[in-house]
């Protein structure tokens, strides 16, 4: 007489000893295993935002980790939580990644107090990316509002590193106040060395501000957009991309050449927890990068 069920211990399976490979979505792996990273540098950008340079410590894991512009990672601060952050650095840089993080909750507040040398974890990369190869041979227009410049820095690096493959590249960037502008130390380099046309605007000027004042849509008057040969990437608050995309639509840019990156609060990054759902779509798996036509089709996106 035997009725005993045998234990099927999946801890012993080979995939349970290997580092997870988040680019391979369909294999069983340790989905909650993090790559341990060291914060090798911290750059204070504004009063609210800091740029963290993270280096994956294990060489094998560092080799496995590669991302495309637009993708995000889950950043783990052990004991304090995990947050989705889009990667702001060049996808060519396999040594370390850069994350631009705003202080806005339990996890990020803790992270902002962290010192150089601190150890955190990352999982990823997750989500869709911008079709950079498809854009080659065309003009590229990057439009960012506020913190939206952070996710656009990765595609900008891509273009800059392959500058010959792209035609005119322009960045339109708007914030509420001048002091909220991110990466100001790179503007000159982008313009002079990389031949990127950069137009900035603020809603509310302070006494030192000598640039333009107004809404980001006003910048359209200063550039010529060729609707037949232009790809656009927009990132910013929902109100902004609605106005911007409507305007671009009226210029005749096809909706499938306009890309937006949506922001939601992912908890798992893997299309399970449903916290980032927009309509019936997972922002973490089917997004965060969507073309404008897909966004229009999502209930409750805007």
């Amino acid at each position, binding site marked *: 007489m035997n009725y005993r069920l045998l234990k099927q211990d999946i801890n012993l399976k080979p995939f349970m000893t290997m580092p997870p490979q988040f680019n391979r979505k369909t294999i069983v792996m340790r989905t909650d295993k993090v790559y341990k990273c060291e914060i090798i540098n911290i750059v204070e950008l504004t009063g609210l935002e800091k740029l963290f340079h993270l280096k994956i410590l294990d060489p094998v894991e560092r080799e496995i980790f590669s991302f495309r512009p637009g993708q995000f990672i889950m950043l783990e*601060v052990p*004991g304090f939580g995990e947050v989705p952050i889009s990667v702001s650095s060049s996808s060519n840089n396999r040594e370390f990644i850069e994350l631009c993080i705003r202080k806005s909750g*339990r996890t990020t507040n*803790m992270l902002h*107090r962290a*010192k*150089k040398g*601190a*150890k955190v974890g990352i999982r990823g990369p997750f989500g869709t990316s911008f079709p950079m190869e498809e854009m080659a041979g065309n003009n590229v227009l990057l439009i960012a509002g506020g913190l939206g410049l952070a996710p656009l820095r990765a595609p900008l690096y891509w273009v800059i590193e392959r500058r010959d493959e792209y035609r005119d590249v322009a960045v339109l960037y708007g914030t509420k106040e001048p002091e909220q502008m991110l990466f100001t130390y790179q503007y000159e380099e982008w313009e002079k060395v990389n031949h990127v046309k950069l137009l900035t605007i603020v809603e509310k000027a302070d006494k030192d501000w000598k640039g333009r004042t107004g809404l980001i849509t006003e910048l359209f008057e200063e550039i010529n957009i060729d609707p037949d040969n232009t790809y656009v990437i927009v990132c910013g608050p929902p109100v902004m991309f609605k106005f911007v995309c409507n305007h671009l639509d009226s210029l005749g840019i096809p909706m499938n050449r306009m890309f937006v990156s949506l922001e939601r609060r992912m908890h798992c990054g893997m299309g399970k927890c449903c916290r980032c759902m927009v309509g019936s779509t997972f922002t973490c798996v089917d997004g965060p990068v969507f073309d404008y036509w897909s966004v229009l089709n999502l209930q409750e996106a805007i």
Partner: protein
Amino acid sequence: MKYLGIETEKVRIGVFDFTGCEGCELQLANKEGTLVSFLDLLEVVNFREISSERGDNYDVALVEGAISRDNEIERLKQIREKAKVLVAIGSCACFGGVNYLKNRFSMENVVNEVYGEHKVETRRVQSIGEVVKVDLEIPGCPVSKEEVERIVVDLVTGADIKFPKYPVCIECRQKLNTCVFDLGKICLGPITRAGCGAVCPSSKVGCLGCRGPAEDANYDSFRQIALDHGFTAPRIEEKLKFFNALGAALQK
């Protein structure tokens, strides 16, 4: 936390009681399994129930009980002055609690009824927040030790403190309890903030709302449900006002 390069510092606390049963204070000294680690996070400067220390160099004052006498107001204001952070612990401190029931009667009647010939001075009951500025409220009758532990850990590490926003029902269903309404009793679980682990409904006792309202609690629907279950309107209001925790929210 050392791994982030952040040093943790012990929290210097003082624990003080006003009108209440001191059950919350007792709760702080409860849970033997973790008590040693818990006290390790603290430097107790003043805590009558567990130590003879009577210092006043505390950073965090945990205040239990409601205010019901004139001399308590003075004492509370002094504590407020010394404390960097004042935490109201327990439903009496946060909302007035059971003591608040007294406010339905004239103070004269109250004194006669309770003390007869040996009259004492008394006043309308107030929550701590009605008298001084409160930085943090930890509700519950009594407070949940697990929650206090979590909050103290957050204070020590400097992390943001979070409370559940959802109602008790979630925790109750997760314990696979039978709904107290199904047992023919009224339960404030659907509108009360969770975090207690649904202790009362787990013992088949209806929730009395000691932790205050859940965020966006649907009072109208709750009243209708209670009426549909055969409870009279006065009975429902009586329940809602029990700790003055939901009553306070209703008036807002």
